[in-house]
């Protein structure tokens, strides 16, 4: 007769690390699909707006400089949202695959936090892949500098965290049937009114829009990227954009973890 074996306590960090290793393992298997999914949209945009239109003389040369940070911001944001929201909708909606992780001996919020971190990593990787492709398509870009690497890193990490947490909130709060709606009603407007394809300063021409876009988290990633990558050109102050991202991060982090807990524990 066996005794009741009581396995020893496990540190939350050990479990977190194991969960992250699992996500990395799965992501590596799916890397080609991941790249196609995240690269398609920026490549198309870059080709049309960063290559064709400038060739035709339809936009002025400076546009490419304004476009690049925005394209990076959109890729980062979209990839971070999708990497968390889609698996959450699937797992809680029908596959129930996440059940085995919900039984891990760790506080439930740690499991959600790991998912957000994994989403951040995927967002950052997407941005890293887009950068050389953009250079390839658009050729040399005036005024682009990596001299402020600390700023670039800060905006990237904050942006990825904000959108990964938003992905958690959306993915656990939306019914599986409405996932298509999420993209057309929330994500698409966010992309177009997030100052990604035009600089915020340019909206001086349409003052109402200049304030409306401030409710869009993507605005701060786009402008933060501009502040970090093309600091010579007009942009929102880095202090403002990073502070706003910090607040947005905190809000969606709390909302995302709470929403995850509600779905996980009945």
């Amino acid at each position: 007769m066996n005794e009741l074996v009581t396995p020893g306590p496990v540190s939350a960090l050990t479990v977190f690390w194991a969960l992250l290793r699992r996500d990395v393992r799965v992501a590596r298997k799916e890397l080609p699909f991941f790249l196609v999914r995240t690269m398609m949209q920026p490549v198309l945009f870059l080709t049309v707006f960063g290559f064709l239109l400038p060739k035709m003389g339809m936009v002025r040369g400076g546009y490419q400089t304004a476009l690049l940070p925005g394209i990076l911001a959109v890729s980062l944001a979209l990839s971070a949202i999708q990497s968390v929201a889609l698996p959450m909708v699937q797992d809680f909606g029908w596959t129930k695959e996440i059940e085995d992780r919900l039984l891990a001996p760790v506080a439930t919020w740690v499991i959600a936090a790991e998912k957000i971190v994994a989403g951040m990593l995927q967002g950052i990787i997407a941005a890293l892949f887009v950068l050389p492709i953009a250079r390839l398509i658009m050729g040399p870009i005036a005024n682009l500098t990596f001299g402020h690497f600390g700023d670039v890193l800060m905006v990237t990490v904050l942006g990825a965290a904000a959108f990964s947490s938003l992905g958690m909130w959306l993915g656990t709060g939306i019914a599986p049937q409405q996932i298509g709606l999420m993209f057309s009603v929330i994500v698409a407007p966010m992309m177009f009114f997030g100052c990604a394809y035009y600089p915020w300063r340019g909206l001086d021409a349409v003052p109402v829009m200049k304030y409306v876009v401030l409710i869009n988290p993507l605005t701060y990633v786009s402008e933060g990227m501009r502040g970090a990558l093309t600091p010579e050109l007009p942009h929102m102050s880095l202090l403002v954009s990073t502070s706003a991202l910090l607040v947005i991060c905190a809000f969606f982090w709390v909302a995302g973890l709470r929403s995850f807990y509600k779905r996980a524990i009945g």
Partner: protein
Amino acid sequence: MTAIRTEGLRKIYPLAVPKRRGRRAPSAPFGPPGQSALPPAAANGARELVALEGLDLEVGEGEFFGLLGPNGAGKTTTLGILTTRVVASAGRASVAGADVINDPVGVRRRIGVVPQRANPDRGLNVLENLVFHSAYFGIARADAMRRAVALLEQFGMGEKADAKVDALSGGQQQRLMIARALIHEPGVIFLDEPTVGLDPQARLALWDVLRTLHRQGRTIVMTTHYMEEAEQLCDRLAIIDRGRLLALDTTVSLKAKAPGGTLIELDLNGPADDAAAQVRAMDYVSKAEAVGDVLRVHSAAGGRIISAVIEATEAAGRHVRNITLTEPSLETLFIELTGRKLD
């Protein structure tokens, strides 16, 4: 030693009120997709649904314990609470000495859970499913590999280690779920309707696996709505319905409590009350009752009195549409207790 104890466990689900942002009905933590944890009773206009109404249970260490009841009885909710996936509205529960509310992490460390529908991690292959699950429990990789390989061998899936999960049959997937539930060597194992959807052969194979686990001294708690499964496997059974405990005893004693005689059920073409009065007066009839259009007769002479019962029924002005015979068993006890059949 007590492995599991519940005291006055209650669970009330608020029902979706279709105004403002409608809240979803809670989905069954281990249930099939899209199936609500709520019994059909939720369909009426009530504001809340009582899934469990003061459940007191005690399961001893090493016991094979069965929770028997129809769909919506509260079995899955009970399992959800004991496995820390559902928070009880009231009452207390502890598993292997750890309180499910105050120490859910301690509970999870000590339990293994086999869901109703196999939910392997499809991003990983068969071996990885086990190895990563071990990692969540802090088991070192080399040790995890050794255990995973041993379990796959034990369950006759040694050659499937590198297979994709989707390549497994339903029975194999369910065995993988059991292997996963065992790999961190928990003392208590929960199984939610583990054989639903399996073909008879796979079901028998799974029974063998469960018997072996029981012999190894593990505490096993299983929900089922199959009488035969409960009779075959469980030391002790709790019969629950509509969130209440109706009977709790060893399988043998419960069978002995089953009302004597064969149960003959006749579907009539109208209310069965007059027919019941007629039949009650007959020889060999220990009990006759009307449940709507159904006439329930307990016969001490097996099916031999059927023709006489039909005659009496027709004399009472009713026609018989259908007849069912049930030998004394947990099934008849269940019908006696709940007034309805299991499925």
